[in-house]
């Protein structure tokens, strides 16, 4: 794991700029037919959104990816708690962030504050991830 686990450590950020194709594939993988994700006239004219709405659980997935990439095969995510606080749209660039808030070196248990932020810097999906580093026993 790089950087090494320590309270206050900020993991490398990742930016996501999902397009229509990615959003369509995501909702197809779910079997989610909600028009706000693919029908632009419906989303804008009927529901009054400024564009196609990104699916909330896709942002939830992104909260995991930073932490999961950092852990690699040295540990696993054991829990997540998050909420979707605001709508986001195709065309936006969103940034995933993660900061280690607790680390128990004896057990390998970690808590990590995670968030997806929009271009205005607002957190649209704040959360906490629990993770466990596998302890090597010899």
């Amino acid at each position, binding site marked *: 794991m790089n950087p090494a686990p320590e309270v206050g450590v900020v993991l490398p950020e990742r930016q996501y700029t999902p397009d229509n194709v990615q959003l369509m594939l995501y909702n197809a993988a*779910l079997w989610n037919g909600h028009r706000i994700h693919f029908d632009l006239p419906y989303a804008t004219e009927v529901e009054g959104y400024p564009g196609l709405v990104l699916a909330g659980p896709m942002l939830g997935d992104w909260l995991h*990816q930073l932490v999961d990439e950092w852990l690699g095969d040295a540990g696993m995510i054991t829990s*997540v708690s998050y*909420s979707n606080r605001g709508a986001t749209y195709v065309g936006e660039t969103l940034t995933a962030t993660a900061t280690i808030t607790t680390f128990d070196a004896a057990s390998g248990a970690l808590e990590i504050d995670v968030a997806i932020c929009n271009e205005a810097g607002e957190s649209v999906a704040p959360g906490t991830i629990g993770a466990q580093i596998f302890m090597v026993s010899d």
Partner: protein
Amino acid sequence: MTGLISEELLTNIGRQSKPQREIVTRRDIRKYAVATGNRQRKYLDGDVAPPMFHVPLFWDVVELDQLTPDGVSIDTLLPKFPLERAMAGGLDIEYLEPIRPGDWLTSVRTLTAIYEKAGRSGSLIFYEIVMDIRNDDEELVIREKTTRILR
């Protein structure tokens, strides 16, 4: 309680869905990993499922005439609430066991809570649904709690 939630509505707490049993396939894992922009080879190749793969695995598959005009499937576990407009909700997920291609998983959803809180512009109704996902050895693989807010 300030009156929005009737005793009758509360009797729905404990309501449970029929068990839903699904098989995990490499192809479905790969599709999900690609669609979410995952960069890890073990997920892109479908060797193991990434976190949140249970979301596509257990999304309700309903027939076209059961979708609302805006393309949404109606959650039959839910009673009729006196407030209807759904606001953003939250998820709490515990990951207990890894998920791999070939695994058969069974989910059961339970309506576990209905309560009311005062919001800035009136009362809000909260409800919680817990989904337990078990493997064929009856081990709990994932427990997910969804909290939804109605205004």
